[in-house]
């Protein structure tokens, strides 16, 4: 009996130790902060793919991308094609950047697609092509993450609601430069409704420190996913 117990203790100690040994360096993958579990397909895609999109608001369409691979990815680029009902008109758009820029396996990112200047009518259908690269960890990586988001009550005037966001620097070095906060807002069915971004032109955030950003929302946003990105 004593032998068995000793074996168990040794085995447990080995597991703990192995778990504590640092493996190969992994990319820092900031997560989105959310107060909603978005309505997504129940099956995870086998690649990096767009898993949800909003209806157009003007010429803009919000998207949610998911990393269905087993490795972290970055430099995600989404090319979209919009087909207007009836007329056969086709409009294309490409994302500038998704937030966060690096996606952990299974992770989500949000972004906005701007389809030119003309409004897209309801009933427009979309198709997406996604390209990405395997993330290569780098000690100089900049990783910003939203730690807290507070919504104001509904307001009258050009700003419907304000979101006060606290952005943390997860990287190892002080970051100096613009900070962009991207907010995806959802409707009652937990589907994307629209995306809004706000940029602080110059911020200095030391490693592990935070900086405040205020996002002025022109439309109400009771349910959201929010993330931050640099440059």
């Amino acid at each position, binding site marked *: 009996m004593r032998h068995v117990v000793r074996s168990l203790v040794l085995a447990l100690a080995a597991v703990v130790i192995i778990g504590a040994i640092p493996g190969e360096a992994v990319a820092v993958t900031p997560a989105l902060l959310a107060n909603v579990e978005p309505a997504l397909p129940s099956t995870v895609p086998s690649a990096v793919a767009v898993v949800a999109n909003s209806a157009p608001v003007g010429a803009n369409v919000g998207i949610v991308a998911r990393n269905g691979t087993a490795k972290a990815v970055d430099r995600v680029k989404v090319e979209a094609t919009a087909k207007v009902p009836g007329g056969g008109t086709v409009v294309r758009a490409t994302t500038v950047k998704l937030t966060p820029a690096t996606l952990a396996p299974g992770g989500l990112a949000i972004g906005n697609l701007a389809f030119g200047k003309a409004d897209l009518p309801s009933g427009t259908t979309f198709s997406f092509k996604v390209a990405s690269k395997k993330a290569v960890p780098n000690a100089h990586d900049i990783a910003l993450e939203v730690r807290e988001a507070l919504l104001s009550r509904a307001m009258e005037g050009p700003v419907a609601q304000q979101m006060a966001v606290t952005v943390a620097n997860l990287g190892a070095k002080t970051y100096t430069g613009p900070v962009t906060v991207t907010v995806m807002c959802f409707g009652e069915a937990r589907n994307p*409704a629209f995306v809004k971004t706000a940029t602080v032109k110059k911020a200095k955030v030391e490693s592990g420190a935070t900086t405040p950003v205020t996002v002025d929302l022109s439309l109400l946003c009771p349910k959201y996913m929010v993330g931050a990105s640099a440059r």
Partner: protein
Amino acid sequence: MSSAGQEPQRPSRAIAFTNWLVSRTSRALERGTSRRGFLIGSAMVGTAVAVAGVDYALHPGSAYAFVVPGECAGGFCEDGYTEFCCAINNGINACPVNTFAGGWWRADSSSFCGGGTRYYIDCMQTCCGPSKNYCQNGYCYCESCVPCNCPGGCGTRRVFCNYFRYGQCHTEIPVSGPIACRVVSCTPPYAVAGNACLTTPAVDNSTAEHAANCATNVDPAAGAATISPRRKARNVIQVMLFGTLNCFLVDGEGTLLQKIYAPGAPGADGNGWATYSLTPAGHCSAGTDVEAEDGFQNNFHLFAKAADGQHVIHITYVRSQSRWVEQTH
């Protein structure tokens, strides 16, 4: 809601009766069933009785006539949105009793509004259950007294399920139950006094073409309009529109004004009157008389002398579209 410092209201008589009915019916079933069978059976009967009320208790059919989200392989019951009010309110496109307008959103480019903007109002259940200990967007929630369900089966959307509030209407009510149902209109909700809504916008364009599971898609509440124009002063007409007291007059700037008696509503003055412009300034002859007529083509009409003194400004409330239209004759 304890976190907002306000106690939940007591259940209404109807809800208390429903609770009693569920309790009595479940107890009666318990006598003739196994323990396991009772647990499953009572849950289904509880759902059916609470939704159908007395009818199910007196005429028991299948308790499975009502489904809850998650039970359907597909269909509107699973799309996440709340059903139109006409589906649970005797065909009437208005908030049912024990609910209130809690917020609104718009959907642009809707064929139901001639390619224009369609508006939805969420009817929140008046708080009647215990606190849910959940707040969001500045509002808090209590548990529903009606089970979350899809009243017409998998082909209908859910009711009493979604704890979600945009919050631009009845801002004085900080706590509610879930969304009971939604009212639809081509008229902005803030232009209707009884809704007590702010103009603050919200949008969900994926709902532009949602069709109601009943005849009403954008019409105002059937039978809710009561029109009896009365002249209250030389240039003031008083009318009851949808149960709300309205006055119409032309001001000194030549604007045809609608004044709605809605004490406490956003924008209402100290006497409880909210004022909206039906025409731009200068369209009417300043201070001129207003005439009203109801019934022609089932619409409500206002007439005032135009600013040039030669024409008539004719404002029509188009009931089928819930909007005002200005013409010059």
